[in-house]
Every structure is written in C-alpha cells, then in structure tokens.
C-alpha cells in the first residue's frame, strides 16, 4: 500500500501537466459548487438568524406548558394553544438560572396580530411582540435603533420597524392606538406612544414588520396576565452538554413546577424556511447533474492520459507489477489529485466567501433581499455542504477508477517494451 502511495505521488509530479488539467477542472467545479451551496446555506442562515431569529430566537432549550407540544401535534387551534403558558415565569427563571450550566433564561412571546390606528388611518395585521427589559439580549443583539431610543420601560412604549416610518407616516413621540382583538378574542383599543424605530441587523422588511413593547404593554395587547409568558428560552454555557442539562432540568422542574416541561429548541419551534428549502433542493439536484457530467469528463481525461502512458504501464508490468497493484496505484493517484483539488476548491470558496462577506454587499432592493434571505449577501459554510461536495467528488473518483482503469491497463508488456526501444 505504501509503495503504491509513494509511486502515485511520484507519478503526479512526473505527469505534472496532465495532473494539472484534472486538478484545475476539479478545483473550478468544486469552487463553483461550494459557492452555490454556501449561497444556499447563507440565505437560510440569514433568514433563521435574522427575521426568523427575531420571531423565534434560537436557543438550546425551551420551557413551555407541559401539554403544549402534544396539543400542537394534535392540531388544536391557536385559541387553545395560546392558553398554554408558563405562569409565574420570573420565579421559575430565577431557579433555572441558578443551574450552573445555564447562561441565560429569557421570556419569549408569540406575535399578536392586531391593528395600529394612527393619524385617522388604521393598519391591519401588525405583529406585536413583548420583551422583558434588562433580559432582552436576544432582541437587542439583533436590532439597530435608527431613530429615537430603545424601549424606556414605560408600559405604553412601542418600538416600530423603520420601514413603518414611511409606510404609516408615524414619528417618534406620536400617540397611537393598538386595536383589534387580543389572543383570546376580546376587543382591544389601547393607547401607546412611539419611542423609537429599529431595523433588524439582517433585515427583511418584506416579511417581517414587528412592533416591540415591554411585557407590561404586551400583556395588554395579548390578554395575558402579568408573570405569564408562552415560552422561556434557555442558552447554555458553551461547554455544557444539552442532553445532560436537559435531563437535570427536567428533574428540577418536576419538583418546582409540574405544569411546565422543558424540551429541545427544535422540538418546540419549527422555523419556516419552505421557500429557501425548496431553492436548496433545486441547487442540490443541479449539483448532481454537474457531478454526473464532470464524472464523464474526468473519466475521459484519465483514460486518455493512461493510453498515453502505455509505455509506463508496460514497464511496470515488465518489472513484475500485478494488474491489481497498478489499479491501486492509479486509483490512488486519481484520488489524491481529486481530493487535493476539491480541498483547494473549498479553500478558494471559503476565501471568496469571506472576501464577499467582508465587503458586505448590502441591498435595499426588495427582490434581492428576498433572494438573499436578508438585506445582505451572506455566504455561509455548513458541514453538510462540505460533506456533500467531498462525497460527490469521491464518487467521481470511485467511478473513474472502476470504469476507466480496467481498459487502460490492458497493455501488452511486449508491445510496450518494443515501443520503448523505438
């Protein structure tokens, strides 16, 4: 094995030019495919960390009503799901925060769809979310204040998305009425005041224009009691294993408050990435098509190269090399070139991605924002993309070895020797 590896290495450099062609082809293709996949990763990441992250801030664990998950799976309506909350959440948060593996515990609300009455006009379907001031890093870290200031703590304070300034013609300090109905169907008409405007750090105003208010204000809009929230999100310290902390907290919560349950984030919140998921599937299918064509290309180049290396193969036979040994040696050679090329492709892709991310291509064009999943182009890297790409190129190698080497190694030693003598 070592000998074939050594010879494969030597052959790569002995046939530099030929190896270079395959190397360049695979590098180019893996770079392009990597960039495609990282574009798809980036738009999903933009969406989940940006807009979806504001709606459902990603966390490690989530505390909810004990029956919430079952009721949702059973198809119960929002009306009954809204009643399933975590009551006395502050006391509960304190106890959970006492566990040393827990880094942060914060309440997360569900959006209330209601209207906004301002300057004699009413705007429907605006989403209201509540934040607990002082325990709102999940919101503060994701937004920028564009005008006015962040919520002061007054229960009637509102923080509006910056796009609403023009859309609704509203300014800082304006008195507005939040109108419609609470989560429980009661009529709602409460006076509020605009304290500031924000935009999400990764913005997508086409999809999301939420208004934030302190929890006291949110209670008025949603109809919840004080000290009652739908969810508590938990961030764990980096070194903690979520499984063991989950088990530990399950035992703890059973004794403190049997009315709640703690689960993994993904069990409770399903992020809505349908469109971006579909685009990713299209990209994956197209990479398959490319890999298929590339496979033929590489097979062709390899077999042509080996035909031209007939003398070399004949010499190996004369020196006593078996066909199996030669197959192993040439397969290793192709594998090394392809692997090295795909690694180079990935590295170039990573560099290109970091340069593009560094340049920070921002856009105000709504069409592009939809395509990017946010207001900036982001190329992200996921392990699954790298595994997919490397796996595809290994498949190319294996297929090439399987179908190209057999025929090319059918060289008569005598003919090869004769040719060498000439």
């Amino acid at each position, binding site marked *: 094995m070592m000998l074939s590896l050594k010879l494969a290495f030597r052959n790569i450099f002995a046939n530099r030019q030929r190896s270079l*062609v395959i190397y360049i*082809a695979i590098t180019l293709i893996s770079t392009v495919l990597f960039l495609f996949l990282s574009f798809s990763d980036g738009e999903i990441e933009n969406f989940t960390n940006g807009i979806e992250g504001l709606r459902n801030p990603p966390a490690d664990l989530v505390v909810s009503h004990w029956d919430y998950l079952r009721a949702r799976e059973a198809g119960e309506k929002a009306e009954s799901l809204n009643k399933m909350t975590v009551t006395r959440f502050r006391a509960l948060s304190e106890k959970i925060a006492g566990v040393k593996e827990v880094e942060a515990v914060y309440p997360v609300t569900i959006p209330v769809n209601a209207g906004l009455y301002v300057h004699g*006009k009413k705007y429907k379907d605006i989403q209201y979310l509540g934040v607990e001031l002082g325990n709102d890093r999940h919101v503060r870290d994701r937004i920028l204040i564009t005008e006015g200031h962040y919520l002061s703590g007054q229960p009637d304070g509102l923080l509006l998305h910056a796009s609403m300034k023009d859309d609704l013609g509203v300014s800082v300090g304006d008195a507005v009425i939040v109108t419609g109905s609470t989560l429980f*169907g009661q009529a709602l008409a409460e006076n509020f005041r605009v304290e500031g405007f924000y935009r999400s750090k990764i913005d997508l105003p*086409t999809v999301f224009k939420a208004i934030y208010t302190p929890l006291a204000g949110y209670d008025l809009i949603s109809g919840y009691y004080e000290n009652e929230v739908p969810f508590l999100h938990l961030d764990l310290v980096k070194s903690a294993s979520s499984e063991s902390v989950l088990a530990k907290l399950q035992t703890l919560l059973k004794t403190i408050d049997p009315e709640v349950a703690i689960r993994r984030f993904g069990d409770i919140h399903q992020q809505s990435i*349908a469109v971006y998921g579909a685009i990713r599937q299209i990209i994956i299918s197209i990479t398959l098509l490319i890999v298929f064509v590339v496979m033929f290309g590489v097979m062709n180049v390899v077999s042509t190269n080996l035909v031209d290396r007939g003398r070399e193969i004949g010499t190996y036979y004369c020196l006593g090399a078996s066909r199996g040994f030669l197959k192993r040696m040439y397969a290793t050679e192709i594998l090394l070139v392809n692997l090295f090329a795909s690694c180079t492709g990935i590295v170039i892709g990573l560099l290109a991605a970091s340069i593009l991310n560094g340049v920070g291509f921002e856009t105000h064009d709504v069409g592009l924002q939809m*395509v990017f999943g946010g207001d900036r182009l982001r190329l992200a890297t996921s392990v699954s993309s790298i595994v997919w790409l490397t796996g595809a190129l290994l498949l190319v190698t294996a297929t090439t070895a399987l179908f190209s080497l057999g025929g090319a190694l059918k060289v008569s030693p005598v003919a090869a020797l004769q040719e060498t003598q000439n």
Partner: protein
Amino acid sequence: MYLHKLVLRSLRRHRERGRRLSILIALCIAAIVFLLAMMDSFFDRYVRLFIDTTTAHLAIVHPDAAELKRKPWKRGAEGLLLIEADEDLLSFLRGIEGVVAAAPIIRTSGEFLVLNGDQQGSTTMVGIDPDDRQRVFPGLRISHVSERRDPDERDVPVLRRSVQFWEAIKVATDSITEGDLRVRDQELVRFEEQARDAFPRYFSRDAGGDRSAFLRSLDAALADPLLYRGVPDRYRQKYDWRLEEAIAAAQALGDGEKTEISRIRYVNKQLLSALFLDAISPVSESIQLGTPMTFQTSSPREVKALSMPVVIPIEFAGFAESMPLYGFESFMAIQPLKNYLQLGEHEFTEVAIRLADIGRIDSIKARIQEYLNGRGLNDQVLDYREMGAGYLPTALGIRIGLMVLVGLFIAAVVIFVTNMILLAVIKRRREIGTVVALGMSPREYALLFLGEIFVIVTIAWIGGALLGSIVVAVFAKFGMPGMVFFHDHLLYFDWSARHVLLAYLFVLPGALAAALIPVSRVLKLKPVEVLRETQ
C-alpha cells in the same frame, strides 16, 4: 485547399481520441441545452403563471393603490381604494384591438371563520363576474366544484384558495390515541372513571389501570353509530352548544342511511371530545365544501380605531389554485360582494385587462392611460411587471443561478478540450516533424488542429443537441418534479431551437479558444529540432 482532406484523414487516424472528446462535449452541450431550456421555461412560465392567475396583463387602479402594487411589501391603510369604472370606460377597454377581456374587480382581504367562531385562514377575496373570471385569469385551477343543492340558499358560493400545507390536519380524525388526551396523572385516572361510568358497555370491569386497554375500548366506541344514545342525561342538564351540535350530527348520521365507517368515527370523536372537553382534544373543523361559513372583512370606508367588520355568509363551492406558495386568492361573484360592502354601481378596486399579445402591452397601456387622463381621471394603469414585483425576484434569482451553471459547463468544455489538444500535440510530435519536413508550415498544422476541433464540436453539437432535446422533451411531457413554485410542483419545459443554437455558439468559440493554447506550441516548434527528435 487540401487542408480539409488532411483534417478528415487526421480525424480518422485519431478517431478513438476524437470520439471521446466528442462524447464529452456532447454531454456538456446536452447539459447546456437542458439548463437554457430550464432557465427560460422557469422564467416564462412563472411570469405567465402570475399573469394568468393573479395580476392579468394590465390593471387600472387608484393612484395610492398603484404605489402599494408596485411595492407590495408596503402596508396600506384599512379601507378600499376605489375607482369609478363606468360603462364608457369598460366599452372603451373592450373595444381596444388586442384586449381579450376587461373585468371590474373588488379585491379585499379577510378571514374565513367556521360557525363556532374559529378562524380557518386568511385570504384575499376577489369579487369578479364568474363569466369574466376564466377569461381574465385562465391559469386558475378550479377543482372540486359542487353544484348548489338549494338555489334559494343565501350563503354566497366561494371558490376557496387552495389548502396550504400548514392547514392540512395532521392527526387522525377517526381514532383516539394517547396523543389526543389532554390529561395526565390523577386527572387521567378521573377521566378513565368518568368514561367507564358514562359508557359501561364498551369497557370491561376488570381492565383496571391498563391504559392501552382503555384506549382500545375508547377507540372501539367510536365505531358505534348509536353511541350518541348512550350519552347520560346528566351531561345534558347544563346546555352546551358544542355537545348538542355533536349529538345532533351523530344522530343524523346514526339514524340516517348507511354511511362510511370513517365518517361515523369522526362524528363520534367530535361527540366524545365535546363530552369530555378537558380530556380529549377537540377535532379540528376540516375544510369542506358545502359547509356554511362566514367571510369577515373590514368595512370599505369606515375607518375607526374599532369598527364593526362586514360579515358575509358563504359556503365553499370549490377550490381555486392561483400561485402555489404565494397564492391566497379566493373568488366570489362580484355583485353579492358589492352588496355586502355597500359599494356603488360603478365602484371597484380595479379593472383587470387581459391582452391577446403580451408584446403590445406598452402601446395599449399608453393608450388607456391617455384615455383616463383625457377624462380627467387620475387612476393609473399598471402592467404585470409592476404588479408582479413580489414574484419576479424568485424568477430572476433562479435565472441568474442557471446562467452561472451554463458558464460552468462552457468552462468545463474549455478545460477538457485544452487537455485533449495538449496531449495530441505531445503524441503527434513525430507526425508534426514529418509533415514539417515534407513542407507544411507550423501555421498550417495549427489550422489543421483547429479544423479538427471544429469538426469534433460540430459532430458533438449534433449529438448533444439531440440528447439535450430528448431530455427537454421528457420534461416537457411529464414535467420536472420538485418545483414547488408551480402547480403540482411540476415545471414543464419548452423546447426552443434558440437554446440548441445558443449552445453551439457558446461552445464552439470556447473550444477553439481553448485549442489555441496548446496549438500555439506547434507554432513555436523549430522544424530542425522536431526532425532531429523524430530520427
């Protein structure tokens, strides 16, 4: 003059290598034809889809609505932005050459509510004359249309927007499992006792605390068409509309003609969940045709902080699928919608116009705008590009992605051709030396190489175009699956000779340019050296 003979002779001599290169280029050309067809089919069909189902070619709208249509992400205030469309305007529009149909429309948004007050999804309600609907929006997929049983029925028939994936009921409606139980621990034990006590004939006395036996018994009770007769009177002493409705539904089914067992089980599950409301999850009202419902929308004019909604009694008469993923349009006849909204005879939110030829859109648009201005109306005419601003980015994004891939395949051809010629130059050094000794200049030999590439690419193009066209034809016939942006998630391809020709025009110059790099080596060869090497 003799060069073409030499090209053909050379190709014959090196046919093995030429064949391989041809196959490879043919595959790349097939891929390019496929990608170009996919790119154009996606874009054209997607644009056609939103024209045919949602926007039409042109629309006359209120000036403030024009801003919202061009920027669909902007929020509009409650209340309808109405235009006046009288008979003169409609006659003028219908008289324009190239206008297939012009239909006044009322477009408003609202919610569907089932009779118990639960929401069953939001929608954009399009009020349009049923005769105009298919002429203006021929791409709408109307399905499951049911006949009205009672022509005097007051409920307005509505073609409901298609059911979205999140609206499908994921749980079985005809069985009871552990996932349906809302209780645990002591409450569960209490519920078991209540159920056994209420329906003793379905539960064996000695089952004890066996949970699965209890669930099996509960599930078995669902199959009994006469289950409602066993409901103890004490449960009906206090009036509960849910229970009374469930009993009435079970009675109608149990005493009526023989019906499907799954329907009986569904109704009985509703009955049990109404009876044990705290213990069994209520069965969601499924989306059904013919069921009385309401459509609730806001008042078209009265805008107050709190105002009464307009409630229209409706029933679903069928389904209408417009844009998959983004399509939220339901349809009803325009007159009843106008009556409920109390709109004047000539008041509409827009007039949708369908053209025979999309190429004439700019001239017709200008003519209509001129007419409106001439009458002193400040309404605006928008075309599908302005109204489809929310849809176009998807089509453009996919188009750009596929264009990059076409470029990748051209690059692949360039690399493979370079490799083949490079090898050929090395392999043919003796041959080159010989022909140079016989008087052929290196420039002529380089031309020979380029001639070979020209022939190989042309032959490969024929094969590749054929292969690509076959693949395109297959997708044209059966559709490409997984395309969630289209009806049935299928994208049907359109074959075009332009794609085949473009593939040739892309690949041939690329291949010739690629051949120039190794061929330039031939030009640098010194005949004396080559001859010496050959000896």
